């Protein structure tokens, strides 16, 4: 069997520190080049699953990225392969944006070495990709929620990791900021990265994601192409609501590519 391209989660169980398991034997595949939405009601285990995959909380099972077992790697080696954008950052220090993004290079540098040309280029590229180059010298704490979210995305991109895990990156954003973030994520997926996003909003998932994994009580209920996952039966069984086809409003960014209203 050839190693599968992308992130392969195989029977992963994970727990909060000193707590019982909240994720039980979860298996799914998040292919490279696609945006996979991780869905489920509050308390379904989405954030804990992420932390297990990242090695922040203890996890059992198999986590393979392009055939390599991530759980066996040292923290520094893992950080070069998979990056994380948290739901709420605890960063409350007025660090300049450029230095926040440069933290993404942590795993690439020796203990006493200064930043190399390559590190600086990676930081510039990441800020450019996430659309935060203009904020480079601003203090992180002065930014709006949407700007902070994109700076954290830039920090994750600066790691050079092939896989990106984002925990509800859009929950605090207005509609425009949300679309801007999804545009960045779409470009990343098109460039071949493996992008996994926890989303709260099913409509948002259906519009922006390629694939979806629906979690319930720490287990996979349904997984597959998003159009097959967000359908009547799974939505009723997991969320206890009825799906109404064709409901809701749609939004898009203006064609001219202007970034400001």
């Amino acid at each position, binding site marked *: 069997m050839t190693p599968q391209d992308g992130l392969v989660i195989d029977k992963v169980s994970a727990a909060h520190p000193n707590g019982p398991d909240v994720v039980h034997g979860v298996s799914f595949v998040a292919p490279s080049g696609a945006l996979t939405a991780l869905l489920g009601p509050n308390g379904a285990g989405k954030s804990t699953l992420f*932390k297990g995959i990242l*090695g922040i909380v203890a996890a059992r099972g198999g986590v393979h990225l392009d055939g390599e077992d991530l759980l066996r790697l040292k923290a520094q080696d893992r950080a070069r392969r998979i990056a994380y954008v948290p739901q709420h950052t*605890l960063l409350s220090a007025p660090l300049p944006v450029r230095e926040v993004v440069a933290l993404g290079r942590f795993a690439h540098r020796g203990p006493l070495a200064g930043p190399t040309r390559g590190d600086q280029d990676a930081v510039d590229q990441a800020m450019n990709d996430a659309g935060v180059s203009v904020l480079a010298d601003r203090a992180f704490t002065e930014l709006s929620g949407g700007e902070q979210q994109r700076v954290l995305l830039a*920090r994750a991109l600066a790691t050079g990791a092939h896989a990106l895990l984002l925990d509800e990156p859009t929950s605090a954003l207005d509609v425009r900021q949300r679309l801007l973030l999804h545009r960045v994520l779409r470009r990343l997926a098109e460039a071949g990265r493996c992008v996994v996003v926890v989303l709260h909003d099913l409509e948002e998932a259906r519009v922006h994601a390629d694939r979806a994994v629906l979690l319930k009580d720490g287990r996979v209920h349904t997984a597959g192409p998003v159009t097959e996952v967000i359908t009547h039966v799974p939505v009723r069984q997991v969320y206890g609501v009825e799906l109404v086809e064709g409901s809701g409003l749609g939004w898009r960014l203006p064609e001219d590519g202007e970034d400001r209203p």
Partner: protein
Amino acid sequence: MSRRAVAWLVLIVAGIGAVVASLLVGEGALDDPEMRSTYLHLRGWRLANSMLAGSALSVGGVLVQGLFRNPLASPSILGTTAGASLGGALVILLWNTLLAGWLPTWMPAELAMPLGCLLGAWGALLVLLAVTGRRSGVVALLLTGFILSSLFLSVLGLLTSLAQESWELGRAVVAFTLGGVDTKGARHVALALPLVVLGTGAALGWSRHLDALLAGEDEAASLGVDVPQVRRWVITWTATLTAAAVAIGGNLGFVGLVVPHALRPLVGVSHRQLLPASLVGGAVFVAWADVLTRVMPARGAVPLGVVTGLIGAPVFLVLLARASRAGRLG
């Protein structure tokens, strides 16, 4: 000129001022040609000791603030200084009582005292971590630190009164607990300097890890930081620096709080900038505090720790009030 450059300029000017003032101010006039070199010699070593203690405490302050992600932490507020004092006093007592008959006379208690300070500081930090855990709020951390500090100082008080049975021993313990750099000389610098150099060098080596920890332990771990390892080493180096400071200066409160706090808005929160600035800033602050002890109207000498406390405690209260209004306590 950038704020950082202004800050360094102020530090350098204040540092030169502190050196000049330390050498010129004090009992005994320098115009007496016979005594001049003696006075300058004594004051020079006193200055070196005050600067070393200040540097050690303020770098230690930056380290614990990074570890607990809390700018209100400092070695004195968390009980680390009191733990080091207790450890040092214990060693002096043991040396002069239980071990007195066993040790060669060329090994004075002074040589082993820094080791006692180190173990005391270490133990205080470990107890603090065990009681509060790593994710507790500011109030729990400060309260635990306060209670530990009281406990250590109470035990120290008990030891001091026990030591009064022997006049010489009592005097040694009291002199140690009162602290101050007025009687400290080259030997103390020789003892403390390697510890301060080692601790500061190590702190600089961990500065990128501490920067990453500004975003919390989970995010730091996802960036590749081995968080438990960083925690172990930061505690080790904080204990080392606090022990060095207590061994030469005694219990000097609030240095590790005031200096980094004053410097952060000027040089930034990045540890690569903050650590060197705090190293110099701590030296300048305690050197000036020591000059103040000599000009304050008092019968006998004002203890150095009294001056740092008189300056530091109000600053701490202002910070606490500000944090409370901003809802950052709890």
